[in-house]
């Protein structure tokens, strides 16, 4: 156990501080490479009425211009390997659903030549009214954001015989909790979308091998996802691609989607030359996935001494224009709506809503940061309404060993109690003796509140 407690030098640190770490953009091939640029949608929602790349193709230095017709398998889903149906085209077919959606891509001798060709592609659009506000997605006259409807119709099962169109977690007897409660404490929380803005923008270098195998030097955070996506779009088995993991110049979740690897690979397939695609800072901000925006409504049934008997939530998750990982994020969010607390009676409901915003993606916690936010804000609010100490409300309702989470996971080592105690100590807060002495051991006899005895007598989950 030499490592525990020791100060270990960072594994890649020496390369990082001497400029010797090779990021994808630093890789130099003896044969050089072509450069890619993409034609991106200037509209949030539009039909493409005409497309003409003939002028662009005749410009000097241009080697290939690809559209959806050049992609062996254009439509693929990020969660296809879990059986989630595919919905997103690699290159737009006859409509665009978010600002910056790629429609065509160019490979040319230089970035400047590629951009000149992109600018020379003639496209006409018929603009449509975009949908930006998740709360309006359910209106009968709302603009249509997705061909499946304005929210995901599918959480498991078969699409034709779709399972529930919402993620629902229920436990205990919510009606009883609200009847029993002294007070109802409500909250509405709207965590905004966030751009990861890694210092290294999305970049890929695709190198076709004579054997037919495609090698991709990738800055992805999710090597095996990316390998699967490149192989799928190229229409080859997994052994037809080789992904080379390079240093990641910051990702924070934003490099989980295969943003640049796939299109660079299709251009390399078409030109039979290595192709590098390096997003600009503007593209990174406008076109890369963001953390999802959320709209969360909560109502807590609480006793006057601060026990949370029940919680009811309704969540809207902004998936953006395509699904990507949003069904996963919505599911994870719904599981965790109780936060680090044991709430015996719950009903959590969540929709993955489609809008005409850039598709949302992973970012540090992937769906769970929004639940921590709602849970902690609710505790503060409960403490304020009841004039109680917020630390004590936290400790009172804290997860304890043996407690069951809303998703039926039985907790073995929930750290809420020691963590809250440590925070109080660091903040210089003097806890009442019973809270200072509290442990994460199961709640037992004498400390059981009357309502919990009644709840236990009623039996566990419904």
């Amino acid at each position, binding site marked *: 156990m030499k490592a525990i407690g020791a100060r270990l030098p960072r594994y890649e640190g020496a390369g990082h501080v001497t400029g010797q770490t090779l990021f994808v*953009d630093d890789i130099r091939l003896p044969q050089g490479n072509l450069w890619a640029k993409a034609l991106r949608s200037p509209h949030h929602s539009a039909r493409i009425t005409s497309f003409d790349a003939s002028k662009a193709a005749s410009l000097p230095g241009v080697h290939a211009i690809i559209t959806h017709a050049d992609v062996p398998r254009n439509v693929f889903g990020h969660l296809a390997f879990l059986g989630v149906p595919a919905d997103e085209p690699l290159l737009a077919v006859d409509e665009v659903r978010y600002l910056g959606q790629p429609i065509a891509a160019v490979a040319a001798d230089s970035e400047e030549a590629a951009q000149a060709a992109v600018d020379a592609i003639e496209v006409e659009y018929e603009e449509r009214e975009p949908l930006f506000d998740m709360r309006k997605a359910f209106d009968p006259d709302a603009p249509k954001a997705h061909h499946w409807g304005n929210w995901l119709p599918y959480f498991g099962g078969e699409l034709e015989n779709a399972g529930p169109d919402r993620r629902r977690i229920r436990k205990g007897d919510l009606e009883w909790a609200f009847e029993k409660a002294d007070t109802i404490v409500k909250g509405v929380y709207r965590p905004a979308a966030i751009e990861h803005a890694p210092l*290294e923008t999305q970049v890929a270098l695709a190198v076709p091998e004579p054997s037919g195998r495609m090698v991709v030097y990738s800055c992805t955070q999710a090597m095996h996802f990316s390998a699967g996506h490149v192989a799928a779009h190229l229409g080859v088995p997994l052994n037809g691609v080789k992904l080379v993991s390079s240093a990641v110049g910051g990702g924070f979740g934003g490099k989980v989607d295969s943003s640049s690897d796939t299109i660079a690979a299709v251009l390399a397939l078409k030109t039979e030359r290595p192709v590098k695609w390096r997003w600009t800072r503007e593209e990174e901000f406008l076109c890369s996935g963001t953390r999802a925006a959320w709209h969360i409504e909560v109502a807590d049934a609480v006793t006057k001494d601060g026990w949370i008997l029940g919680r009811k939530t309704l969540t809207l998750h902004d998936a953006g224009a395509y699904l990507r990982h949003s069904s996963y994020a919505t599911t994870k969010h719904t599981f965790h709506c109780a936060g680090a607390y044991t709430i015996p009676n719950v009903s959590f409901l969540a929709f993955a809503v489609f809008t005409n915003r850039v598709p949302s993606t992973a970012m540090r916690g992937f769906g769970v940061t929004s639940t921590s936010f709602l849970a902690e804000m609710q505790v503060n609010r409960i403490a304020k309404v009841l004039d109680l100490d917020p630390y004590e409300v936290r400790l009172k309702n804290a997860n304890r060993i043996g407690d069951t989470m809303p998703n039926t996971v039985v907790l073995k080592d929930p750290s809420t109690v020691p963590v809250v105690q440590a925070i109080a100590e660091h903040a210089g807060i003097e806890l009442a003796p019973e809270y200072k002495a509290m442990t994460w051991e199961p709640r037992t006899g004498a400390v059981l509140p009357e309502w919990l005895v009644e709840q236990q007598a009623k039996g566990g989950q419904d």
Partner: protein
Amino acid sequence: MKITVNGAEHELASPPLTSLLNALRDELNVTGPKVGCQGGNCGTCTVLVDGEPRRSCLLPLAMVDGAEVTTIEGLGTPKRMHPMQAAFHFYYGSQCGFCAPGMITASVALLERNPNPTRKQIQNALGGHICRCTGYVKIIDAVEAVARGESFDGAELTRSRGGEATPKGASA
């Protein structure tokens, strides 16, 4: 056009309005300075031009004819690190590594101008450098350590496993 990069003189073929960053990376294959924004906003392309920190993405070659340019590679190597590189390594001032080339060169220039900067002065000097990983605290700790005269054994730092590296001359 002629420039000296990390001690080696080069005759450049790139046109005079090419940015120094592109000339370094694409003509000379000096890839330490990174392409972060190409707009002078992020600082990762920073190099020393005659000792002064400059954003190489905004600097046309015509402006640096005859200049002496030092990039992150010119400061030191993994086994012979510049004290600033060693301090960034020791204090975990570099996480993903993408901002380090600019942060470190700018910090070296700061201590040349002002060998004993306050924390606030370090913050100001690095104000135009964006790091998305560290939250800056460890970066400023590293610069302060060099200013205090801490030095590090490069070989010890580059060992990836086992044992604790201790800064020499560090006050307890």
